């Protein structure tokens, strides 16, 4: 089972078309394994990226270098997945 320990979801804001294109470039770098949850659309629209723990530093460096403003939307994806799993387990137990 694939785990997502330490993976984060970053909410990035692109200020202009140039930054939108840069996010496209980021997505094309397969080694970074960025998973776009919300794709780049137009300036001002939020873009959400799930970034694996192993490439997090590289992606953040890229965003900083190109002066993107971003925030961490999900600090640790696996923590939420564990909560989800526990919630489903609890629901099944109650049902029985």
């Amino acid at each position, binding site marked *: 089972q*694939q785990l997502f320990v330490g993976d984060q979801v970053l909410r990035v804001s692109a200020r202009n078309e140039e930054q939108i294109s840069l996010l496209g470039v980021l997505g094309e770098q397969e080694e970074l394994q960025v998973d776009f949850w919300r*794709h780049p659309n137009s300036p001002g629209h939020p873009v959400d990226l799930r970034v694996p723990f192993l490439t997090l530093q590289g992606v953040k460096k890229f965003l900083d270098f190109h002066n993107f403003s971003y925030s961490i939307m*999900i600090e640790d994806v696996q923590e939420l997945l564990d909560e989800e799993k526990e919630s489903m387990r609890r629901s099944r137990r109650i049902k029985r």
Partner: protein
Amino acid sequence: SSRTFDFASYHTIDEIYDWMDVLVEDHPSLVSKIQIGQSYENRPLYVLKFSTGGRNRPAIWLDTGIHAREWITHATGVWTANKIASEYGQDPSVTAILDSMDIFLEIVTNPDGFAFTHSSNRLWRKTRSKYSGNLCVGVDPNRNWDAGFGEAGASSSSCSETYHGPYANSEPEVKSIVDFVQSHGNIKAFVSIHSYSQLLLYPYGYTYTAVPDQQELHEVSAKAVAALSSLYGTQYKYGSIITTIYRASGGTIDWTYNQGIKYSFTFELRDTGRYGFLLPAKQIVPTAEETWLALKVIMEHARDNLY
């Protein structure tokens, strides 16, 4: 039973399929289950049919879960199925819709992907098909329709989340719906439900050309979104796919619109920007409740404006 089912929890495909049988048992004169095909991994593709009789009535199609990781949509589909069944004979609007039209609802539109999200990778989006020569598994079933297929707004790389597949309708999950829609021939509204980002969209996604019915679709969207927001204040945007979200080719409702289904819409349900595809289960019922209000507006409009 359908009464003890926990609608406020996420469920596996087996639980959902079992529950569908219970819903049919509980409402035998209204609900039936039909199989429209099989997935790549040979799972049945089930559609719930809500009908009060008559042959080949005008119909409304709803689907959820074509993107596997969008769990809130399957959960909304389950809640909605129960709502349709329980409101017939109670709610005048639902009763009037079902007295003149049929409703088809496919809850698990991408069963292989959905099963995979439960067993192996919670964040899987695509189908699970394999093609020789492809490095990666799966096709984005919302880029696999024969509407601008393979143009900008889809990827030719099998490893991409938006891989369009080797040819239009290559995915049995897509082809089964195509065959069903074409053989039915009288579907008047088609709503495909996704998550997240809180949008109600109409065609097109593959071209900036406005659809001939743009004004009407825009007005219906405004009304539907107003109804949705009235419950919990959830903010939605609406418009054509390409102007509101991004260019996307080979998309579901572009194809349905081109087939003559005027009332073709796609939803992007909640999130508010905190959880993405991992929306907590306690938000299932509120999400489904607000979505239902918008769906009713679209269904009522289709009922009152048959063409």
